[in-house]
């Protein structure tokens, strides 16, 4: 079982290296983060915080945009692409279960993400350290940023898999992946902001808003990272929100990511009950509804 998961993961990683996905992600992450580090750490001197810490604060906003995008672009092909190429039939004609396949994909993609994040952000950390801006707590901040970015990526990988398993064409999956990014990363915050402005003291602001932040892994990520930096003073905005929440910001990230990622994995696992083209999406949904997981297991 582990052998097969590792095989799928290794193959995904190799493909990531081979089609230059990893390289591209590293270059993008490094370029943006270095630009932010050089431009954005200017106030460090006046605020008396390390340049690394303040860079991490800017980078966590960068991660919110880039990491979900990279994750979705890695994931949308996972099932639909294998169906379109005809390789899914081949893979499942070997003694391999659907969960092994998806977990393998996820492990491989997480490794791709981690490598890209480590190299991309690591380059920036290295640059700051080399120019005398480094300290131990700054490196810890960077490590936390990379780790939490990977968790954020995992949540969006899972979303990508579910899209990939639901649709039949790769192009549709790609379009939906971009749509998800747009909605969750851009429009979601705008909508929250609008609602907050409209009802700044009422039920929404006090009760719905904190949980609406939790429900979106991107917001949870930002919340967690900024409050972990104690960055209220320097960046204000988002981190200021953290103080008014009915729960500790540290609790934000893990549950919101897991609550999204786990059902996604389970769902895409059972949606893929049959990798057969004629089987309609509706009948796949109904399989899930009727809890045919156990039936699947027996079939296998």
């Amino acid at each position: 079982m582990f052998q097969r998961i590792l095989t799928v993961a290794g193959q995904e990683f190799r493909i990531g290296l081979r089609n230059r996905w990893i390289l591209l992600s590293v270059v993008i992450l490094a370029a943006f983060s270095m630009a932010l580090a050089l431009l954005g750490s200017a106030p460090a001197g006046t605020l008396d915080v390390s340049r690394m810490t303040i860079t991490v604060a800017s980078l966590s906003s960068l991660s919110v945009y880039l990491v979900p995008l990279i994750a979705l672009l890695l994931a949308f092909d996972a099932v639909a692409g294998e169906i379109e190429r005809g390789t899914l039939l081949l893979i499942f004609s070997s003694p391999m279960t659907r969960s092994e396949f998806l977990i393998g994909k996820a492990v491989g993609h997480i490794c791709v993400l981690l490598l890209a994040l480590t190299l991309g952000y690591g380059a920036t950390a290295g640059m700051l350290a080399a120019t005398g801006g480094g300290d131990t707590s700054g490196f810890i901040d960077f490590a936390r940023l990379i780790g939490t970015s990977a968790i954020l990526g995992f949540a969006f990988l899972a979303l990508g898999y579910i899209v990939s398993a639901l649709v039949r064409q790769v192009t549709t999956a790609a379009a939906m992946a971009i749509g998800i990014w747009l909605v969750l990363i851009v429009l979601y915050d705008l909508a929250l902001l609008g609602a907050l402005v409209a009802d700044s003291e009422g039920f929404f602001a006090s009760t719905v808003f904190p949980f609406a932040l939790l429900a979106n892994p991107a917001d949870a990520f930002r919340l967690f990272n900024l409050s972990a930096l104690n960055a209220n003073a320097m960046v204000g905005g988002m981190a200021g929100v953290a103080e008014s929440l009915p729960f500790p910001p540290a609790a934000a990230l893990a549950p919101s990511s897991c609550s999204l990622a786990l059902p996604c994995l389970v769902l895409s696992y059972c949606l893929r009950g049959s990798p057969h083209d004629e089987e309609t999406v509706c009948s796949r949904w109904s399989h899930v509804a009727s809890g045919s997981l156990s039936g699947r297991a027996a079939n296998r």
Partner: protein
Amino acid sequence: MNNTVLRAENVRKTFDGRDAVKDLSFELGGAERVALLGHNGAGKTTFFKMSLGFLTPSAGRIEVLGAEPGSDKARSSTAFLPESVAFQRTLTGVEVLKYYAKLKGEDPKKAVGLLERVGLAEAGTRRVGTYSKGMRQRLGLAQALIGTPKLVLLDEPTSGLDPISRQNFYDLVTEISGNGATVLLSSHALTEMEARTDRILIMSKGKLVANDTLEHLRTAARLPIRLKVKAKDEPAEQLANRLGGTPVNCRSVEIMCAHEDKIARIAAVTSLGAMIEDIDVHLPTLDDVYKHFSEKANAEDSAGEA
């Protein structure tokens, strides 16, 4: 036939109220090479998917080596080559083969040796994206040969291949069955398979309309044998009168005769001795036999519906 490798019993599969496969029953024994013929939409691919456990029959049952299709036992001894498969273009042939070997729990090093058997030993280190269609198909076949499958299912393996590649492909199929595997391959390119299969199954509109060796099918179809006799000097009309055939283009005569009359008619022709320059005997081809059986099935269908 010794042991049964694949058994189908009254298999039926319905999509949206339409039967894709109905009342399909047959058995495959060990080390047989069997061709599954039928035009597009006859139910071949549906049957393959059911034998692999991707689809469950609406009625009836399929057994692979006595086990349920899709069970670990069935899957570990079945190999499959889908109709159209596009391996990751950025990976090399060796990487693709090692991947599938590991998924099947086989030794990746041994699997790489298969590249030589399909004539891709040198191309193995190149990326799949650079392969020709024939090479990709052979890579697919190499993938199907990983381990020691007892049942090899090939869905239209030769479509899009040039004649030489097809010949090589069937040589490989013969080799596989020589090693004890049962090969079931579907195709609609028929003539190339004549000498290459032990048995032929013909499907039409989801039903099995024939299941026998080509020889028996020929006899059962009672298709006429065509003798083409070429006259030396004599005008074709005279020859035609004597032999009871129809003249074609001045110097040749075409005679249609039943299988059992063949020898007698040839004897009659040769008795003319000096008048004859040449004689050709055309047995009905697999195409003719196939056409006969699917037309017969169609006729029965419409008679049944009327």
